[in-house]
């Protein structure tokens, strides 16, 4: 190349630095954005890759429902391709701070997943811990403070309850970042309100419950050679994962057997012990019984003796008594005899008495006769004494007196014999009586003697009897004692029996428990199942997708812009080209100037763009993502491939555009070139034919319209520029709208419950009723719906997706809690008895439609065929709804409620939390999840996409600015004579400005209008590429977003116009009018 020409090239750059800069800027933006955005996703992945490698993060993780053993580790280590296997302990604990309960993941610091130390130091002994810095700031704690971590007691393999940690008072010695939790999601917990809030790391020494590991972390051989989430990495991991899964069943069984074995062994021991004890107890009882029996025999013997003695005594007594009685009988016989004698005697006496009495009577008769005689005598005497008595009388009387005296003497004689008889009798009686008395006396003596004998006998008898009684009494007390002993024995027996039966029951329970030891379940997980990692990778993918759309727009615009600029430049230098041609320079030599110009602009701009793009864009995007992920600083890479591609593309575009515009000119002869190019012909536009409109337009409007159509290229450029800008902005806002509408769509339109309560499995009816009633009593809960939920895989035969199956207890109850609406008709669907409802995203993914049959795969791999009744509206995750009437026959299982959905009254966050915590305390409840929490969590995830939107909007604005500025420059330079002319004509600055910008404004308006349409489709496209499998973005653009897009575009146009105003003001009339170039 000739020196002069070279010089000319550089001079050209100096003179037209604005143009040079504008091309350079386009190259800068094009390459910068392309390289930057393209590099961001790899940079982010590289960052996490380096971070994960540095922290030695696992490739595969194994968790089990019943813990993992050293044997498991050994077995896994044997798998080909496994490099290192580490078992660790991770458990949820509660920390109470200021009456606030937080759930913390307590993790042992091991070789795998090493936390990154931020401040302080790692724990060195068992009473120290490191915690995430969030904890300190949110709870107003600092390094050096002590916290108390409460972990539920756990059972070791022997079934004993033990503390999980040795030390629960932990001193915070530092803050860390955990590679396991790079996002804010810390996972679910069965404690508290069901969410883990923080993590903390402790020293291994602090673990007390060392029987089983909670997690096994596997490093795969050679995995570190590949970048995480790269296809090679994923393949390698998958390969190993499959191998781990191969031994899964065996290990699960082994663990179950181990547990059963140890439980059985323990049971056996317990059984032996129980039996021993039982025997012991029985022996003791038997001994006690024997003793009692012995005692009883003794007593019996004693009793017998006593009885015998008693008998003998009694016999003797009888004999004695007999004798006495005989004696007595004798006596009584004697007595009787005596009595007989006596009575005889008495009879005699009586006779005698009678005789005597007769005698007496006679005597008394005699006496009476005597008396009468005496009296008569006396009377006679008296009468005799009576002087008056006649002698006759006297004589008579005397006769009588004589008689009487005779009589008296007779009588007296009688009396005397009588008295004599009487006396004789009396004497006999006395004599008899005396005899009797003597007999009596004799009898009496005998009697007395007998009595004495009897008395002494009696005395002897009494004493003997007393003795016997005594012995008897003694026996009685012994008997009583034995009875008491017996009683005690029975009591003891009972007690022992009770105890034994209790023990036995326990044994039975233990046996029962053994039978209940379920098959543990292994979960073999890779990094993709770590929610933080997965969402991070998903985010890098979103960025990657956006990185495809974006730079494309930039490249197109950059190419168009450089095309206009370079064409303009070549046109401006027509004469010079002609001159050079005339001087004999070759086409290539002439072209080289412009190619150098364009190349320099594109290469310098491109390299600058690369430098800035590779650093700035990833950094900016990272800054936004940093709020969500804790990984540390982004690792920036100078990606030669993207850099070269970007540079090559922009170089190709700009230089290509230059060559394109050169080719036309270079074809011309020097002469034609040296003549000024005939100016573009003025033309009537189509609109002028429509006279009734044209007539109505003001002069300046006519000019504007004609000008617009005159510069078709610029017209197109401007419109494309504005269009691009508006559509990118609208797409950005649209993306934001779509994202932000997901949550309300899902949690208001589809799911309208406030709380989801998961119940433990295997509840019996009464337990279930109890919890339901308890919830019903809660005033804060207004509605409860019983459902069965389970996860399942759904497949169309080729593709497979995870879905959640929801089966309501009664199909009518779902309405208002879960609104199942047909995607097309938007009408509420009622579940029927033979078809399922499938949510639309999964239907799309599986390419199935209404009426098709799909297969549902349960965890055991059984496939159930079901017909799709309706494709229904849904935005997050995939669901299959089916009625109980379909579920039961399909699965051959009884329906069993495991999830309760509730609607609550309006509660604030605190009230909701406390309600959840309360419910969580119920023993039947395994988890409580609040819709509001889900919304919050999802919102956080969604926010990251908002940042992308910001980037979209900012860069679209930048693009619009560059485009408009460039076009406005080209416009001015192209029409500088025209502008100078009207300035000479006396147009005020404002009028000149209007003259030009009226066109821009009109074009902007057209651009905006088309841009809105374009944005709508771009949004559609971006959403299509960004949409995560689990989400359904609604393709809605908020009307306000249209307004914002319009306003922002107009704003940028105004800025450019403002710059234009000064550019126009600076136009030098004289220079411009001097001559035609």
């Amino acid at each position, binding site marked *: 190349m000739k020196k002069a020409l070279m010089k000319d090239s550089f001079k050209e750059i100096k003179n037209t630095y604005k143009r040079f800069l504008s091309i350079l800027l386009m190259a800068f933006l094009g390459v910068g954005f392309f390289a930057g955005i393209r590099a961001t996703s790899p940079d982010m992945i590289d960052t996490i890759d380096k971070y994960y490698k540095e922290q030695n993060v696992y490739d595969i993780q194994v968790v089990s429902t019943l813990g993992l053993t050293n044997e498991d580790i050994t077995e896994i280590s044997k798998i080909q391709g496994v490099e290192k296997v580490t078992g660790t302990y991770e458990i949820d604990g509660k920390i109470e701070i200021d009456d606030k309960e937080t759930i913390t993941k307590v993790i042992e610091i091991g070789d795998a997943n090493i936390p990154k130390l931020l401040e302080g130091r790692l724990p060195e002994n068992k009473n120290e811990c490191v915690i995430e810095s969030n904890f300190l700031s949110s709870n107003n704690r600092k390094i050096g403070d002590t916290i108390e971590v409460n972990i539920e007691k756990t059972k070791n393999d022997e079934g004993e309850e033990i503390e999980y940690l040795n030390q629960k008072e932990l001193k915070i010695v530092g803050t860390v970042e955990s590679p396991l939790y790079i996002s804010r999601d810390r996972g679910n917990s069965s404690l508290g309100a069901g969410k883990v809030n923080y993590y903390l790391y402790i020293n291994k020494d602090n673990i007390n419950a060392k029987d089983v590991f909670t997690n096994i972390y596997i490093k795969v051989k050679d995995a570190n050679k590949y970048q995480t989430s790269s296809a090679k990495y994923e393949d390698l991991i998958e390969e190993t994962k499959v191998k781990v899964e191969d031994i899964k069943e065996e290990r699960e069984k082994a663990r179950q057997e181990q547990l059963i074995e140890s439980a059985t062994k323990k049971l056996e021991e317990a059984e032996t012990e129980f039996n021993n004890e039982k025997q012991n107890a029985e022996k003791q009882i038997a001994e006690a019984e024997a003793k009692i029996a012995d005692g009883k025999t003794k007593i019996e013997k004693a009793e017998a003796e006593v009885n015998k003695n008693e008998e003998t005594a009694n016999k003797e007594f009888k004999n004695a008594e007999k004798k006495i009685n005989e004696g007595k009988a004798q006596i009584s016989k004697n007595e009787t005899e005596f009595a007989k004698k006596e009575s005889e005697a008495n009879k005699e006496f009586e006779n005698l008495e009678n005789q005597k009495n007769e005698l007496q009577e006679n005597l008394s008769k005699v006496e009476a006769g005597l008396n009468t005689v005496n009296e008569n005598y006396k009377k006679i005497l008296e009468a005799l004494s009576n002087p008056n008595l006649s002698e006759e009388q006297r004589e008579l009387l005397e006769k009588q007196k004589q008689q009487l005296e005779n009589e008296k003497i007779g009588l007296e004689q009688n009396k005397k014999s009588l008295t004599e008889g009487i006396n004789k009798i009396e004497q006999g009686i006395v004599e008899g009586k005396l005899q009797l008395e003597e007999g009596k006396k004799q009898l009496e003596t005998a009697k007395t003697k007998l009595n004495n004998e009897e008395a002494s006998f009696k005395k002897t008898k009494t004493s003997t009897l007393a003795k016997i009684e005594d012995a008897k009494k003694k026996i009685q007390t012994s008997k009583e004692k034995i009875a008491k002993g017996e009683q005690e024995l029975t009591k003891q027996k009972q007690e022992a029996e009770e105890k034994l039966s209790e023990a036995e029951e326990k044994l039975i329970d233990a046996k029962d428990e053994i039978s209940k030891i379920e098959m543990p379940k292994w979960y073999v997980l890779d990094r993709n199942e770590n929610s933080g990692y997965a969402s991070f990778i998903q985010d890098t993918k979103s960025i990657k997708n956006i990185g495809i759309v974006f730079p494309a727009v930039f490249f197109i615009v950059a190419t168009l812009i450089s095309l206009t600029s370079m064409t303009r430049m070549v046109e401006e230098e027509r004469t010079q080209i002609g001159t050079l041609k005339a001087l004999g320079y070759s086409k290539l030599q002439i072209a080289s100037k412009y190619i150098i110009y364009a190349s320099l602009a594109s290469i310098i701009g491109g390299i600058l763009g690369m430098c800035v793009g590779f650093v700035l864009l990833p950094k900016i995007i990272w800054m936004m993502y940093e709020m969500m992920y804790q990984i540390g600083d982004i690792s920036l890479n100078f990606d030669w491939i993207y850099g070269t591609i970007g540079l090559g593309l922009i170089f190709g575009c700009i230089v290509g555009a230059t060559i394109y515009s050169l080719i036309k000119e270079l074809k011309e002869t020097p002469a034609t070139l040296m003549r000024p190019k*005939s*100016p*573009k*012909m*003025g*033309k009537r536009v189509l609109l002028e034919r429509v006279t009734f409109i044209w007539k109505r337009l003001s*002069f*300046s409007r*006519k*000019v504007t319209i*004609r*000008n617009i159509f*005159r510069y078709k290229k610029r017209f197109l450029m401007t419109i494309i520029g504005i269009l691009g800008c508006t559509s990118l902005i609208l797409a950005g806002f649209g993306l934001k709208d779509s994202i932000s509408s997901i949550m309300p769509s899902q949690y208001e339109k589809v799911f309208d419950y406030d709380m989801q309560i998961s119940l433990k499995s295997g509840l019996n009816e009464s337990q279930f009723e109890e919890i339901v009633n308890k919830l019903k009593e809660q005033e804060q809960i207004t509605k409860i719906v019983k459902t069965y939920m389970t996860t399942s895989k759904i497949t169309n035969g080729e593709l497979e997706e995870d879905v959640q199956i929801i089966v309501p207890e009664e199909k009518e109850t779902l309405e208002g809690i879960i609104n199942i609406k047909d995607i097309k008709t938007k009408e509420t669907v009622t579940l029927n008895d033979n078809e399922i409802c499938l949510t639309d995203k999964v239907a799309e993914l599986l390419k199935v439609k209404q009426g098709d049959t799909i297969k549902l795969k349960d965890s055991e791999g059984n496939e159930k065929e079901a017909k799709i009744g309706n494709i229904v509206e849904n935005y997050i995750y995939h669901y299959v709804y089916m009625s109980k009437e379909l579920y039961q026959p399909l699965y051959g299982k009884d329906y069993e409620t495991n999830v309760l959905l509730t609607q609550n009254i309006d509660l604030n966050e605190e009230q909701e939390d406390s309600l959840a915590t309360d419910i969580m305390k119920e023993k039947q409840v395994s988890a409580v999840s609040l819709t509001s929490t889900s919304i919050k969590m999802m919102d956080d995830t969604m926010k990251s996409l908002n940042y992308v939107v910001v980037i979209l909007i900012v860069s679209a604005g930048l693009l619009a600015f560059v485009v408009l500025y460039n076009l406005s420059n080209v416009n001015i330079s192209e029409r500088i*004579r*025209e502008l*100078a*002319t*009207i*300035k*000479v*004509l*006396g*147009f*005020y*600055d404002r*009028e000149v400005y209007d003259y030009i910008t009226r066109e821009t404004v009109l074009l902007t308006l057209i651009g905006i209008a088309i841009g809105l349409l374009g944005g709508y489709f771009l949004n559609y496209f971006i959403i299509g590429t960004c949409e995560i499998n689990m989400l359904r973005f609604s393709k809605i653009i908020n009307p306000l977003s249209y307004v914002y897009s319009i306003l922002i575009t107009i704003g940028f146009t105004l800025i450019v116009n403002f710059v234009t105003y000064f550019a126009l003001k600076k136009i030098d*009339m*004289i220079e411009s*009018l001097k*001559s*035609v170039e």
Partner: protein
Amino acid sequence: MSYIEFKNVCKEYKMGEITIKALNDTNFQIEKGELVVIVGPSGAGKTTALNILGGMDTATSGKVLVDGREVTKLKNKALIGYRREDIGFVFQFYNLVQNLTAKENVELATQICKDSLNPEEVLKKVGLENRMNNFPSQLSGGEQQRVAIARAIAKNPKLLLCDEPTGALDYKTGKQILKLLQDTARRENMTVLIITHNGAISPMADKVIHFKNGTAEKIEINENPKPVEDIEW
């Protein structure tokens, strides 16, 4: 006092370190209604003088008075107003707006002036009644210059300034244009200044100002200007 007065007007351009004096103490007067021809070789300062007079450029020092108004003192907006109302310009390369028809080009000027003339009438006057709706590209050079003249005079200016109006035209057409200018000056009693490097046309003027080395070296007054038709060159 004359209608136009140039008093000690200097104009310097700074090109880097060098200062070029385009006008060096120029003095002349022009009366109202005069047709003035300014002649001189290239670089003598004719155009600079015209530009300053036309309000397109400013003098470094000195005074320019037009109709008693000191143009040199006018600031930006007033200067534009001056151009707008008082000056009509005719350029060597016509400077028509390509995208506008002949009539529209004239309208472009008239729509911003208060006392503008009817564009169609003006075009008739310059003999273009049949080409009014043609675009510049459809007109010959002479016709284009006529449109330019029409555009200038339609504003009804105080001054009509023409910078080499025939420079791009052939002899015959040039002559016609000069005639048009002369006629216009006579008919409308308009003050017309024509710059030319062709001294041969001087006889048509009322006054001829000779420029040399940045100053008006000689001012001739033609008592009897010749009609253009009579001039040959």
